């Protein structure tokens, strides 16, 4: 299995073998972070640019640490994108970064399809760190990596995803990745937060949190995206916690060793109680650690693919 994509835009287009390759590579990279000197020269001399149009600390820092542990040089560009602001276009920004001879752009943008658009126009690698509601592939990969680590496999697992599915790129990427690897995925949310046709992506739908938790081997709890709320019918925070919040009490009715995940940052008391966030079932901090290994693997693989696709010097 050879990785030949110069970009990572989403999990929808990846094959099962490609997913497994990333996970196996991530496994090898995990060891690097346990060393005294947490560095390998794999991306030495390469430049990784973090182009973040949406505020994000965790993902950006995670990519930065991953790139630096591969000995790459990292540049961070944080801009606030607004449809009203007449700034430089995304494509122009990308072309400029390419002209600086950067090697990889890690892009986060609030428009679905933004990463794909950049990748279409640029010869350098593009890694999607989240585009609108569409996909957040590295998050799903680290979620899946963590699950595999904890439970030994993905195939046959029952995984429930709870939260604002309609507007969640983490949910979409997870559904693609998990179903391709043979897990059974259930999504759970208030009706208006379940998007039309989600069943066609391979997910089962329930509006009942207890049902979602009942036979689940793992539950991935999404952030309630209050800052993206426009609809008047949006449920109140406390109401949400009452009906969908993951509490110790609810987990008692679930499997004893159910794995509780969250992409972070947690809204304590809204998506889950502090008790659960800090409890024994939670792997939230391990997800963060694994995020480094997964992102190292992704950066390594796309850089490789681009180098081997090159015939002459750039």
């Amino acid at each position: 299995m050879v990785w030949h994509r110069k970009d990572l835009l989403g999990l929808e287009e990846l094959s099962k073998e490609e997913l497994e390759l990333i996970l196996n590579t991530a496994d090898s990279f995990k060891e690097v972070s346990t060393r005294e000197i947490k560095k390998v020269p794999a991306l030495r001399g390469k430049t990784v640019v973090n182009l973040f149009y949406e505020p994000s600390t965790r993902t950006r820092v995670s990519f930065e640490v991953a790139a630096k542990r591969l000995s790459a040089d990292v540049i961070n560009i944080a801009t606030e994108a607004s449809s009203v602001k007449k700034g430089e276009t995304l494509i122009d920004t990308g072309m400029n970064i390419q002209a600086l001879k950067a090697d990889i752009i890690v892009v986060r943008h609030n428009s679905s399809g933004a990463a794909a658009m950049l990748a279409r126009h640029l010869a350098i690698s593009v890694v999607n760190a989240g585009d609108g509601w569409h996909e957040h592939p590295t998050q799903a990969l680290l979620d899946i990596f963590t699950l595999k680590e904890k439970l030994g496999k993905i195939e046959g697992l029952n995984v429930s995803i709870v939260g604002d599915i309609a507007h969640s790129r983490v949910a979409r990427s997870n559904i693609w990745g998990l179903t391709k690897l043979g897990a059974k995925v259930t999504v759970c949310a208030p009706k208006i937060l379940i998007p039309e046709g989600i069943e066609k992506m391979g997910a089962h739908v329930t509006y009942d949190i207890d049902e979602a938790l009942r036979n689940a081997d793992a539950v991935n709890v999404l952030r309630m995206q209050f800052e993206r709320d426009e609809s008047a019918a949006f449920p109140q925070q406390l109401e949400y916690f009452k009906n969908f919040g993951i509490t110790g009490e609810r987990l008692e009715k679930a499997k004893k060793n159910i794995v509780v995940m969250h992409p972070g940052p947690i809204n304590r008391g809204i998506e889950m109680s502090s008790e659960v966030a800090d409890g024994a079932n939670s792997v939230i901090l391990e997800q963060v650690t694994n995020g480094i290994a997964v992102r190292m693997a992704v950066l390594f693989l796309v850089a490789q693919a681009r180098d081997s696709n090159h015939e002459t010097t750039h």
Partner: protein
Amino acid sequence: MKLLIKGGRVIDPANNLDEVADILVDNGKISKVARNIRNGVDETIDAGGKIVIPGLVDMHVHLREPGREDKETVATGTRAAVHGGVTSILAMPNTTPAMDSAETVLCLVKIIKKDAGNNVFICGAITKGRQGKELTDIAKLKKAGIVAISDDGASVDDDSIMLDALRHAKKLDIAAICHCEDKSLSNNGVVNAGFTATRLGLRGVSKESEYKRVARDIGLAEKARARVHIAHVSCKESVEIIRNARKKGIKVTSETAPHYFALSEEALLSYDPNMKMNPPLRGEADVKAVKAGLKDGTIDAIASDHAPHTENEKEIEFDRAEFGVVGLETELAASITELIDTGLLNWTELVRKLALNPARILGINKGTLGPGADADMVILSPDKEWMPEKKDLLSKSRNSPFLGRKLKGSVEYTVCGGKIVYKE
């Protein structure tokens, strides 16, 4: 100036003609259609092995002039039109300023006289500024030269204003063209609502937004006992509603654009902004229904809804890109590829959709090849394959959904008013 078009297969539904014949053109009019015409002429076009049809009458074109000459002008738009075999177009009123006053209409009439490469007819606005609040003086607009009214780009939300408009249009015997969209149901969407919108993570426009408005406009037409024309029909529910209304005897006509029978929402998976338009591309079932509507006559016309936009406004993030695609240069070939080649329609039926019916709906004397008619026609190679590329398009804007797609049917000559205005 005498012109002879020799030996082509002439298709003229107005005169029940589908046979190999010669056409003699004299002084801009068709003088004779018969076999083996031997008159002395100034120029001959050898149409052997080709098809000769009336020049297309495209009743939905955005020429953008006045106001957005960066996107298109009367000059460039009509040049693109004849490249596609279109000899008559209806220019939509969403210009800047809108075609809502006699002065503005007369201004455009002047520009057309000076720059137009084919016949340009003007559609006036229904309401002032197309704001939907106050009716324009439709009688005055008609005097200035409009042949139809529409607020296209928008729908008139107020029932009473729309009813009034239909009554005026009836009295003045001009077409009322409806862009059917209930914005309150559109959800600010950019693609068809449903699985594709979910998969792409984009806001979806439900079909309700279109068909509910179609039903309303037909209902008002019934009330006013007037005729109404539904623009760019895209979904099966709209086709159903129109079909049922016609059965009831309500005078409704309709049009669809080639992208609604050639493409479905699947074309959006790559986030190509050249697939973004309003109404959006719909699902397979809708494409089937539109095709069925063309076949059984529910949909009378094919019109391009040619909507040029600059690259700056199209080659950007999908949700920020402008809605609309160009179509003058591809509508004939796309129609041949999707409708003739598949055996859904025969040539006579297709020519009705592209030329005769639009002319009749607008009440203009076009779309026919009988003696005395204006010599507007297209000589085309029906089997010639080609692939539209940006460099080949003559329109000022290049936002076509057919770029890089193989099409069948190529225009060899376009004749307008007896003159050859395009030659391959």
